């Protein structure tokens, strides 16, 4: 046998693995930090534009003048409407109009959208909400095509709420803003400036990095913004603003001297959950129980989930999986609607420490969350998501308050089963082969490959027996179908590496 076979190399590399230091909560925090920064930056841009006007394609447009071309909300795609409606509304609901697919609606009123600039490549819109918030969105001309989640036109979106107190806009006293990134490594622990950018107020023509000795490294201001590209490693001490004549009009220190970053600065941070709110007095507004837990919902938005037993398999499994997330689990409460065979759900939630009784308040301070009454609440852990695995496709704790929610949870579980099936490694190998132009296996061969949960179907529209996945194929397309406990036929069409016609996209993520 060859000394260097695959297994031997894999084992040798595995022995060199470093310490286990994963932290999903840290990933989420980074995501939120960035979102917050983006919101703050765009908020800053909004305010800056109010002062200075908006130069697009050579024209200067007063951003908040009455020049915008009104865009009817009905002309937007479903995805765009939801992103506009969802993001800031404090009283969100689902519409239940007979004969129509359900939609998210904002009970606080609808925003007005105006196209305020179009330079041929990028469109900018102003969005005004009836409760006084203004937002600016932009996107490329022609919009974006997304076969999975639907087409959309808004590429970025920011509002004049969020962080104006952070003073990220230029002011007469501080005519530039400074966003800096510093870096270091174990071998070069001294902090060095990696990136510098910001906004510049009127009258600032260039911004410069000032070294300890020597002249400043300058970049020009363009459209009220500046950005340094590659920054040479020097002893930068300050950033300065210059007018058109080259006179320095402002300077602020960078405070980099003597700063040393050590690897310990990037060690894992543990998540601390706030103590649960006190149990509310009085009777709950909603109450339901499942085989694993009971749920009480109060009018204030307080949710109390109580496990029937901490010895239950569900609790023990959540306990195991919560160890990967600092003891936390996800609590979500949702409303659902069904119309024209389309589901729509509106859910919100947060993380909490796993305990026999979990109390949390659905915080809707910034909008975008549903309000009671809910259709169901659930607890999600971090367990596996493989097709046909022992975890199944229901969440470990699902407490429906309504028959519609029970049906939704059953159909979602069935849809997930199909979604996980079409994304299995085995199926991906087949899909890639079909994508390359090779004929796929027959339905019978597919069924043999996946075992007794998969059965071949003779017709494209055929139905699978209960608990089974039926497959039909013409060697180019594969249709996988499964019947929900309520008797609805769900199906996914796989066309090589792409997902074709299906009726599961409201319930699961297929790719």
């Amino acid at each position, binding site marked *: 046998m060859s*000394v260097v076979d695959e297994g031997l190399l894999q084992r040798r590399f595995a022995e060199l693995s470093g310490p286990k230091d994963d932290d999903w909560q*840290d990933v989420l925090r*980074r995501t939120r930090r960035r979102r917050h920064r983006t919101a703050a930056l765009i908020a800053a841009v909004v305010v800056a534009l109010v002062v200075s006007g908006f130069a697009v394609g050579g024209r200067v447009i007063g951003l908040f003048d009455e020049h915008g071309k009104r865009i009817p909300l009905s002309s937007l795609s479903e995805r765009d409407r939801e992103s506009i409606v969802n993001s800031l509304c404090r009283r969100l609901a689902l519409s239940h109009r007979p004969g129509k697919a359900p939609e998210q609606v904002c009970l606080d009123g609808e925003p007005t959208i105006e196209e305020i600039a179009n330079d041929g490549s990028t469109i900018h819109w102003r969005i005004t909400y009836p409760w006084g918030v203004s937002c600016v969105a932009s996107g490329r001309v022609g919009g974006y095509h997304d076969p999975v989640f639907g087409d959309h036109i808004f590429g970025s979106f920011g509002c004049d709420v969020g962080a104006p107190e952070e003073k990220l806009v230029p002011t007469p006293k501080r005519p530039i803003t400074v966003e800096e990134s510093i870096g270091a490594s174990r071998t070069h622990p001294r902090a060095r400036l990696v990136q510098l950018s910001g906004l510049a107020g009127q009258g600032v023509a260039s911004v410069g990095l000032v070294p300890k000795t020597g002249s400043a490294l300058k970049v020009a201001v363009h459209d009220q913004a500046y950005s340094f590209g590659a920054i040479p490693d020097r002893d930068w001490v300050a950033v300065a603003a210059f007018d058109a004549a080259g006179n320095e009009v402002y300077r602020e220190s960078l405070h980099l001297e003597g700063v040393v970053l050590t690897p310990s600065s*990037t060690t894992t941070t543990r998540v601390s959950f706030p103590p649960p709110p006190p149990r509310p007095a009085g009777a709950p507004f909603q109450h339901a129980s499942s085989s694993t837990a009971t749920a009480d919902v109060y009018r204030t938005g307080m949710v109390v989930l109580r496990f029937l037993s901490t010895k239950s398999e569900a609790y023990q499994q959540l306990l195991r999986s919560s160890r990967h997330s600092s003891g936390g689990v996800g609590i979500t409460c949702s409303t659902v609607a069904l119309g024209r065979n389309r589901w729509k759900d509106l859910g919100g939630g947060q993380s909490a420490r796993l305990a026999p009784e979990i109390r949390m308040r659905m915080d809707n301070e910034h909008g975008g969350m549903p309000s009671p009454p809910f259709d169901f609440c659930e607890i999600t852990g971090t367990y596996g998501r493989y097709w046909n695995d022992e975890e199944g496709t229901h969440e470990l704790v699902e407490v429906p308050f309504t028959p519609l929610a029970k049906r939704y949870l059953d159909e979602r579980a069935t849809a997930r089963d199909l979604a996980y099936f079409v994304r299995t490694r085995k199926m991906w190998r087949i899909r890639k082969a079909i994508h390359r132009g090779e004929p796929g296996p027959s339905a019978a061969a597919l069924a043999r490959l996946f075992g007794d949960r998969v059965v071949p179907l003779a017709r494209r529209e055929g139905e699978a027996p209960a608990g089974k996945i039926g497959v039909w194929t013409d060697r180019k397309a594969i249709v996988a179908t499964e019947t929900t406990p309520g008797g609805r036929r769900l199906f996914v069409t796989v066309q090589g590496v792409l997902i074709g016609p299906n009726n599961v996209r409201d319930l699961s*993520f297929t790719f």
Partner: protein
Amino acid sequence: MDERGEAIEHLYRQRYVHFRDGIATITGSYETARDVVQEAFARALRKRRAFRGEGSLEAWVWKIAVRTAYEHRREVCGPSLNGTIESALVEPERDPALVEALRTLPVKRRLIVFLRYFADLSYAQIAEVCEVSEGTVGATLAQARVALEELLREEERSERG
């Protein structure tokens, strides 16, 4: 979180160590690799709607992670190293023979070897991440195995002898 976010979270939970170890061969330390991987998954979460499902989710996240690692290297080492960044085992003293064997491989092949054996990626995924054909990956790994074989055989002989 939506299903796409859940899939990314699941990938993180299942494969974090592979990502961290693979990226450490670019960044040179586990600490920095951790930071890069955390940032890469945060980026993947933010951009998850851009994933069109035209390849595997894991390969898509790996691409982001490798790009983030290279960005980090460029930030720390300066732009002149762009394109010639070397990858290597983080703690060479833990397997000197393997390090010696890897050192004989061209720089560009080493990343493919690391992605295969450290990160446990399939040929197709490596091809997607490195933007080369699967054939190139297969040929590179075959050549790498031949190159490694003699050195490791020597080590085996000396251990027996």
